[in-house]
């Protein structure tokens, strides 16, 4: 009997070993291939390339690819081409950590650029701080990214809490509406957003009707009915444009048309595509210029995406990461000398003042302030486009 279990154990080890050997051989083969392109500046990206948020993950990746293609077409940075290595994490923080470890050790990336996903990027904080890996301008909204300031983490996307402060001020101050409901994703992002709203509403003693929904759900009829019952005049929607369109439709089916608003993701052409007329009059917080803006840099971005990735459509996601890549390249070009290191990049960013990419308000970083996106505005949906209705103001 003892012999039998020993034999089994042997077989286990045999298979494990064989696979290990295979992996090692493959791993070395891949490493050799990577080593040959030693001159390139290797940048990593991790995000949900698959799964229900694949549009977000792929679009953010695409924005970086577009800008890198543009820069490489002009000779690269300091004569060196930029290379993006993208990994999929399926919006699962565990996979995000694993993918980033692989990017660091295996691909030897110098920076993690615009990773996408709120819980995923928070999961990376211990890792990037421990390994001194710059994590720049994630597409994420979490308060934890810049509070307290982390030496290697920089953001350009205003955190959703601050966005909600801006929105709440507008709702109460300009729209003079006091009966508000929040329909939000029941996850970290949604909770953070609601905290932002409550920061302002509690101080003004305005009650907020809170209606969470599970990400991925198809049934919005219940919560829209609840919002209507609470007799609200304004609905803040916190989720993806597709779900916003579903909520708008539900409300319309009930013959109810409250004022809709949302965070910056709402201010996207997708909202019009799916909600059509129902989106007219909705407002959103803007962190960047709307895609329909006349500013030349926005037009240039649209043209570049059409040129380098014609099969994809520009979205607020890809514009964010295009902008991120632009700032990154600017930081690289400010580094004195030939050597590009993590600390050099961080140093260049820490001294960046009033850098205008043309796609959003001016970026300001300092050693103690790594949240660069301090300017916000409100956009309104009119005639199928998003228009600025307030000037760019610095958030308090």
């Amino acid at each position: 009997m003892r012999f039998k279990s020993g034999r089994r154990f042997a077989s286990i080890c045999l298979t494990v070993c064989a696979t290990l050997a295979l992996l090692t051989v493959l791993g070395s083969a891949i490493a050799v291939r990577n080593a040959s392109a030693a001159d390139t500046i290797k940048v990593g990206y991790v995000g949900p390339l698959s799964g229900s948020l694949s549009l977000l993950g792929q679009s953010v990746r695409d924005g970086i690819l577009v800008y890198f293609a543009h820069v490489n077409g002009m000779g690269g940075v300091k004569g060196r081409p930029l290379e993006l290595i993208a990994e999929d994490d399926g919006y699962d923080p565990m996979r995000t950590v694993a993918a980033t470890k692989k990017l660091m050790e295996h691909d030897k990336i110098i920076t993690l650029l615009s990773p996408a996903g709120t819980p995923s990027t928070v999961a990376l904080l211990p890792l990037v701080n421990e390994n001194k890996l710059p994590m720049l301008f994630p597409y994420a909204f979490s308060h934890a990214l810049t509070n307290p300031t982390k030496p290697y983490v920089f953001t350009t996307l205003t955190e959703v809490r601050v966005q909600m402060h801006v929105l709440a001020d507008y709702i109460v101050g300009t729209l003079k509406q006091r009966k508000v409901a929040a329909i939000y994703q029941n996850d970290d992002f949604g909770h953070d957003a609601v905290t932002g709203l409550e920061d302002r509403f509690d101080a003004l003693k305005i009650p907020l009707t809170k209606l969470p929904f599970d990400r991925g759900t198809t049934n919005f009829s219940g919560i829209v009915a609840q919002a209507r019952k609470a007799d609200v005049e304004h609905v803040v929607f916190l989720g993806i444009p597709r779900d916003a369109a579903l909520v708008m439709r539900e409300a319309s089916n009930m013959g109810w048309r409250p004022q809709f608003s949302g965070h910056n993701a709402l201010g996207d052409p997708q909202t019009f595509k799916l909600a059509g007329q129902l989106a007219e009059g909705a407002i959103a917080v803007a962190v960047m210029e709307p895609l329909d803006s006349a500013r030349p840099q926005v037009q240039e971005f649209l043209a570049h995406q059409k040129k380098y990735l014609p099969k994809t459509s520009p979205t607020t996601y890809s514009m964010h990461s295009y902008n991120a890549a632009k700032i990154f390249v600017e930081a690289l070009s400010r580094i004195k000398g030939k050597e590009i290191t993590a600390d050099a990049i961080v140093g260049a960013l820490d001294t960046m003042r009033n850098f205008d990419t043309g796609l959003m308000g001016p970026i300001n970083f300092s050693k103690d302030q790594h949240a660069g996106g301090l300017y916000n505005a409100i956009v309104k949906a009119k005639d199928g486009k998003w228009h600025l209705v307030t000037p760019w103001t610095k958030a308090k």
Partner: protein
Amino acid sequence: MFFFSLIIGGLASGSLYAMVGIAIVLVLQASDIPNFAQGEMAMFSTFVGYWILQQYNVSWWSAVLLSLLFAAVLGVAVQQLVIRPLLGRPTMNLVIATLGLNIVLHSLAGMIWGNETHIFPSPLSDALPLNVAGLTIPPMNVFIILVGVALILCLTFIIRKTRAGIALRAASQNQAVARLMGISINRAFAVAWGLGGLAGGIAGVLVAPVLFLDTNMMGLLLIKGFAGGVLGGLNSLGGVFAGGLFLGVIENLMGAYISGSFGEALVFLLIIGVLIVAPEGVFGRVRTRKV
């Protein structure tokens, strides 16, 4: 008033679960295999329909009919290529194979048609909501329920009265004896999966106008379809349908009256509670088997 709007909304959402449930249970009843690829198969055939509609200047009905044809063919193809070689193997193997197929179809759809969300038109797109006693009822979902009932009646007729249907029942009950009676098991299962594919395709073209068309359209619906089916009882098409509708309603009621954030968990707790009392679903008949 509020209560009734919750019910109506719940029935509307539940109609989607119910349609998916029919497709699942059809194949389950006929071949004893839970098809975890059903959602993505439906999504795939709906995309085919959408693509035909965009590329060629055909009427909506033609595009939909073609997509349903594709769905039926896809069902048969899956049965022949994946299920047939695995006949006689433990059910778990088949389940995992269909799960693999699920992933394959999802990735393939993303590669072919991209990840963006599209509007899928329907003749009822512009129809105004019906107004009954002060309540607004979305016409599309009423249509879905009607189609569902009609489908159940048709399928029940096919299974009970036609030769193919009887062959199907025989094959699912006792393969050995069915063979002896001259029934081709392979043909019977092909018919079952073809019908299942068709039902799934119908679900797809009905769901798409309501939820928008993208590769993730059916993801959660598959689970809800199973859950609703389990709640109602997997033995009968009617039970599954009713279960799906009921699931939508209790989702709304639980969310509104008990807890919004804990709603999904509570729904499952309710299902578990029901199953403790009725292990084969509300309408399920506990099958007695000779040992």
